């Protein structure tokens, strides 16, 4: 634990120093993973799959606000589908627009959730999102999470619909369309996932808000348990017991990941060095404002040294010169 705290301190210092460069790098990695996942899942257009293009758009999204990354991902997904079936791509655009106009536009801060939920679904750990959002935000996050879930299932349906498209007569189009709408509105698994994720966010949020010791840690566990129980019930109702094992494993991994994020949250939340520019009548100022480091963690480090030395004192032989024991070699 102490080593971990030291590690956290070190990461905090590192983050503070290289904040300006670190953020684009992290965003670049996220964007790269996201675009790769999209290409792997619905990569029909070979041109968009080439590495230079992926690297280019990942770079672009590294230096622009997160909304641009979400938009780029949507555009690329639609283009992939357009390559196979223009009709389906129009449907995707219409449904995405409905989701945006009616719901997602009210939570602009959580735009990245719309992208993160489908991507994490592909990585088999979507359970991380509701727990994490319950931990760091408010129940409002239910809206983008639900939209993300719907988007994931929409693309799953599109994937299955693409295989059944043969030719382009009017009847075929209507049949295709009916199939997509039927499987979207009649998708009980999707509705249950939306409900369970919303419940998880609520449970995590309200337990985190309670005032007892370890409320944060307990809320993570409670959120995870809510997810496991909910999905267990839904899989048993839907007769999909095959997925139970991967769901439980995924939830456990998600809980662990959320715990790690929570542990470093102080670090990541920490606003790094600020650069400000302003002027008055006489000077131009280029100010670098460095936040003062908090005191709590250094205190722990001090304790660590004391414990170590008292232990040594207890076991040392009174006849021996203690100077050697006190770690001058360190």
């Amino acid at each position, binding site marked *: 634990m102490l080593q971990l705290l030291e590690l956290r301190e070190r990461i905090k210092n590192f983050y503070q120093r290289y904040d300006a460069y670190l953020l684009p790098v992290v965003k670049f990695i996220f964007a790269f993973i996201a675009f790769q996942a999209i290409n792997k899942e619905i990569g029909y257009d070979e041109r968009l799959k080439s590495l230079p293009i992926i690297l280019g758009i990942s770079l672009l999204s590294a230096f622009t606000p997160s909304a641009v990354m979400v938009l780029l991902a949507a555009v690329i997904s639609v283009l992939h589908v357009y390559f196979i079936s223009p009709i389906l791509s129009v449907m995707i655009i*219409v449904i995405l627009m*409905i989701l945006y106009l009616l719901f997602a*536009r009210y939570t602009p801060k959580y735009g990245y959730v719309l992208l993160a939920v489908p991507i994490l679904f592909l990585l088999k750990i979507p359970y991380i999102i509701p727990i994490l959002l319950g931990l760091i935000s408010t129940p409002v996050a239910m809206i983008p999470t639900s939209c993300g879930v719907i988007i994931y299932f929409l693309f799953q349906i599109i994937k299955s619909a693409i295989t059944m498209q043969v030719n382009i007569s009017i009847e075929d189009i*209507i049949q295709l*369309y009916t199939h997509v709408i039927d499987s979207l509105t009649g998708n009980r698994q999707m509705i249950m996932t939306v409900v369970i994720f919303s419940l998880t966010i609520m449970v995590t949020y309200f337990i985190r808000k309670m005032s007892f010791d370890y409320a944060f840690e307990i809320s993570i566990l409670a959120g995870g348990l809510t997810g496991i129980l909910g999905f267990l019930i839904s899989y048993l109702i839907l007769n999909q017991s095959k997925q139970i094992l991967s769901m439980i494993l995924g939830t456990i991994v998600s809980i662990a990941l959320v715990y790690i994020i929570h542990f470093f949250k102080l670090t990541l939340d920490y606003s790094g060095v600020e650069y400000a520019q302003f002027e008055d009548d006489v000077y131009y100022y280029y100010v670098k404002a460095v936040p003062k480091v908090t005191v709590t963690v250094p205190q722990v480090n001090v304790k660590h040294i004391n414990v170590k030395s008292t232990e040594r004192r207890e076991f040392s032989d009174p006849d021996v010169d203690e100077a050697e024991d006190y770690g001058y070699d360190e």
Partner: protein
Amino acid sequence: MLNFKKIRLMTKLAVYEKKDGKEDIYLSKYYKADYVRLQVLKSIITATIGYGLIIALIVFYRMEYLIKNAVTLDYKLLGTYVLGFYIMTITVFGLGALILYSMKYDASRKKLSRYFRLLKRLEKVYNESSHDS
């Protein structure tokens, strides 16, 4: 000579202006009623477009049925349904936007008051320094 008290104040102000302040200062250009009204109007317009798209999806879904029964359909009843649901939708979205954006405006006002306090203090420092010189 450098006035460090002033620099400290200006740094705080500049950092705020760069980050959270951007939106707060933008909001402060509106009166509350104007801002909320504009946002409610925007919500109603987007909700209308969204509702229209949903209706279009439903119509396309029921195309076959609609064409088959084009003559015998009770258009009056259909229109009432569409209109009724539309009124319900925009009421919900309009009221929701009213509550949401009033809360947002009030919250940003609270943050702004600290900014204005700092600005006032800066003005004081300015006046003092100009008296000295």
